[in-house]
């Protein structure tokens, strides 16, 4: 699969909540880092769990890719937007049924047609604002 196509297929699977097809785009030992969640591990374990939690928290999730390019060294970049309404806790943030609209970016490393690493960049304060969290030391407290 071409590098651009593998990124498109991966993000399409993430958008659909289909971790099996997402992992099919990745090498067995691929890594994942979601910087704002301080989440780091394997795509097959932590990555699959991240996709599952994302869709459980935001069952009407929409992930739109706004810009995608693949540069030298097999590095792919996607700028995307996440939209959805919270229906369950998300990494410690309690559900207040708020709507999110979150611009973010993915950086992929691709080798031999498979994703071998990805890092996700978003601003957690943007997410907190949209989910009505007021303080970083009281993420799970709303009163």
């Amino acid at each position, binding site marked *: 699969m071409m590098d651009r196509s593998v990124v498109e297929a991966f993000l399409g699977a993430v958008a659909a909540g289909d971790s099996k097809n997402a992992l099919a785009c990745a090498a067995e030992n691929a890594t994942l880092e979601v910087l704002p969640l301080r989440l780091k591990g394997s795509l097959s374990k932590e990555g699959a769990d991240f996709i599952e939690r994302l869709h459980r928290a935001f069952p009407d999730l929409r992930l739109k890719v706004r810009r995608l390019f693949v*540069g030298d060294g097999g*590095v792919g*970049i996607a*700028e995307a937007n996440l939209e959805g309404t919270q229906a369950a806790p998300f990494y410690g943030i309690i559900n207040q049924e708020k709507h999110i609209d979150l611009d973010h970016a993915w950086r992929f490393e691709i080798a031999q047609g498979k994703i071998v690493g990805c890092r996700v960049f978003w601003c957690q304060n943007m997410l907190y604002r949209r989910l009505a969290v*007021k303080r970083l030391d009281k993420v799970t407290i709303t009163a």
Partner: protein
Amino acid sequence: MPAAAMEVKRIAEAFFDAYRRQDVEGMVELCDDNADFRYVPAEAWAKQRVVRGKGKVRGVGKTYWTELINAFPDLTNRVVSITADDERNAACEVNIAGTQQKDFGTIRCAGRRYDLPHLFLLHVNKDGLIDDIAAYWDSADWFRQLGSAEVD
């Protein structure tokens, strides 16, 4: 690597060199007069509106960089990686660090230092000038490092 991608990498490196020297005029000179600026996490929620870090390099961008350097006089950066394509896009992983000496926006000065990963996305036009800058980082991490617990 295609020649266009090599040129884009060279310009991206020059941009972060100028930023490291705190040469805001030098940063702006590497950009087209009408270059777009979009710092995605830079948003402030006021009572009736949201103020975003979006506009032109010569307006919002220049002001933002100047105020950041003013608040963090030892502001520096370390380029981790730059990748570019033949459509003249570049993605730059850059760590930005500095010690706070003045309030910056809603972040009250506690004299603390931060070191934060950023992802910059640049586009360079055929005249060799940056015509689009976007950046992503995690302000929650930034605020925590500087001792601020307020989301806004």
